[in-house]
């Protein structure tokens, strides 16, 4: 019983560690995908997923460091990962990312 109690005391730490390991593994696998490709869209999607993983990582860090100062970072990663993925997608689709006025 005491074992379980001491385990529950540390449950947050243990969960954090498991999550860190999971995210690290996920990052490593995504890195493999970014490097090997073989096509550009696959790389782009992998980079986007890395961004999302980083959001998670930043969230875990703020729990680990017991701070709220990193919440801005999390939100910003969300926006920027979206934007850059969009830009890449548009580039891959059309060759440009800002259309010129045609009139």
């Amino acid at each position, binding site marked *: 019983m005491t074992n379980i109690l001491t385990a529950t005391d540390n449950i947050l730490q243990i969960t954090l560690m498991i999550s860190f390991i999971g995210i690290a593994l996920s990052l490593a696998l995504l890195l493999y995908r970014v490097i090997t490709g073989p096509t*550009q869209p696959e*790389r782009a999607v992998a980079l986007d997923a890395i961004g999302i993983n980083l959001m998670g990582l930043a969230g875990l860090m703020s729990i680990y460091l017991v701070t709220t100062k990193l919440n801005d970072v999390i939100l910003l990663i969300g926006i920027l990962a979206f*934007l*850059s993925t969009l830009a890449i997608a548009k580039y891959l689709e059309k060759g440009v990312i*800002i259309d010129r006025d045609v009139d």
Partner: protein
Amino acid sequence: MIFAVLIPLLIACFIPALSKLKEKLHTGIFVFFIPFLIFLYFVSFIGNDFTPIREQYSWIPSLGINFDLYLDGLSLLFVLLISGIGSLVVLYSIYYLSKSERLGHFYVYLLMFMSAMLGVVLSDNIFVLYTFWELTSISSFLLIGYWHFKERSRYGALKSMLITVFGGLSMLGGFILLYVVTGTTSIQQMIGQVDLILNSTYLPLILGFILLGAFTKSAQFPFHIWLPDAMEAPTPVSAYLHSATMVKAGLFLVARFSPIFSGYEGFFIVVSVFGIVTLCWGAYMSVRQTDLKAILAFSTISQLGMIMAMLGFGTKAAVFAAVFHILNHATFKGSLFMVAGIVDHETGTRDIRKLGGLATLMPITATLAIFGTFSMAGVPFPFLNGYYSKELFFGSTLGLGSDFWSQAIPYLAVLGSIFTFVYSMYLFFGTFTGKKQFDQLPKKPHEAPIGMLISPMILVVGVVIFGLFPNIVNASFLQHAATAINSTVVYKEITFWHGFITPFKMSLAVVGFGTVLFLTRKKWQPVYQVLPGKVSFNHVYDAIVNKIGNVANRITNYYMTGSLKTYMSLILGTTLIVSLLFMYLTNGFAFNTDQLAEVSFIEVAVVLIMIVAAIATIYMNHNVAAILVVGVVGFGVAILFVIYRAPDIALTQLVIETITVALFLLCFYHLPKLRKSTDSAKTKIMNATISIGFGALVTLVAISAHSSRWFESIADYFVENSKKLGGGDNIVNVILVDFRGLDTLFEISVLGIAALAIVGLIKYRKNKEAE
């Protein structure tokens, strides 16, 4: 005295305005009065009771560079030569140069030269002396290149400039060493500290440097090569600069510094040996020439060698003979150059092979020439001053010492003088007697206008007066000049006949052998195919000048390839080697593990991912792939900032990362496709070595810097006072806008400038079609 030095320069400023009047009045007429008045002014100093005069004017007192003028006997001799022959040359040039020439230029250069030369001989301050010395080089350069449309003129001007400025610079080195040793810039004060200089370890260097200056200026072997090429100058210039004044500046320098170096044996040996060799070589080469002025140029070289040798002997008799010969040489050589100029002017050629039999057509010129050439040859007639100085020279070569070389000197002197005799006779008889071949001449020869004859006539009168009355100026003038060089000199009466003694026998030998050699000249002329043959110091000079250009070109082309890749590897490689060497020598590698923090699992994981991504970037073949892989590194940096508790920087990093990706994508359209590297394996290994080495260097520096912390960080101050003084909780932002706001201001300016530059680059293109 200072006015005498500076007035020519001052007048030179007005010459361009005066030369506008040249249609009415030859510019030279205005110029003539300047040297003449200077001459009259200095003549008034001559006298038995002459004592040195000193004048001082401040110029740069803090550096000890002052306008110190010192007029002693030696300076007086040179000043009178410069101003006296200067007046005669200006007079001659009035008739020699027609009004269609650029007279303004000519007289400006000539006055500049005159001023510089007066400055050289009157300066007591070594640095002022050097200043005027270089001014003579520059004005001589301008005068030699006066007819700059001729290729030979430009070549000669450049050559004389390079050689004399080379010597001048080394002389400056000698002067600086002298200044370092003695602590004074005044020559007279240096003479007072002779012991200090003689005991200095720099003595050989000082002597070498100063003599190099003197030898190049006075055209001593092997630096004589510029003088024959300087004959491309107008004849008045050759007569003035390259026989009477500038080439004697080196002699003046040696004479001026004789009291300092006379305690040092090497000085005498070097100066005598160079002088004797120059005497013989110049006389020998002179016989070979076919151009009147070239003969005179080599003759000048030879005579300068003779005077240099006498200064080198340094005995009482030799010093007096040297001073006497400086005066005599100026008279007869000046007149001979003017005669050569007249012949050139009236016949249109200076080639002695085309000339001949001019005596009947140009009797006055021929008479002038006969005095000049016979005096130069040292023929024993009682009305030629050249004979007296030659005999004094022979006298001074005797009894120098009992070793082999001292014994050999009289023989070498006679040998040189025999050739002097031969070319002198050749010069006269080749031009004025013999076969008449007037049809070959470009102009129909006739006697020169009287104005042109005045100057050489005055000089020849000088030759005869010094010949008839050799003692006329001894006590009042030459004696003072000689004592300035060697204070123990007391002049002896010079007489034409003082018994059947060795110097007289030597003169007779010269005349005898000389006559034989002159008459059989055609027979032994082929000897020149053997001795100088193809060997020439001109080739050495040309090779050096060309080689320097070629080698410098090759060196520059070797590393200035125009390839940024090469420059980058050069910069990084050099930084790498120099920094590593420096750290190694100063023992800068410090490894201290005291202050290291613990490493957590997640940091390791993120850094590993970044390393893999960074290495993978190099191998990406598509530019979008490359930018995406680099993006991983960028994200990694951002998350490292998060881990190290720097949210503001993480935010900025993320935004910049994204914008960079977008910018890359924007311009990918215009960028070339990534290609497989085509570098050779050697280059690849080289690049890899440099990049790995540089990375290692930066790592080493970072570790060393972290390990050797010398002072406490000031971070605590910011932590304490951010709220109290800055009124904000966010320390980073308080530092950026409050504590260190100035940095931020200029970072903003940088961004503004970058934005404007981008707008400028895109909008204001000259070549709109290039889009």
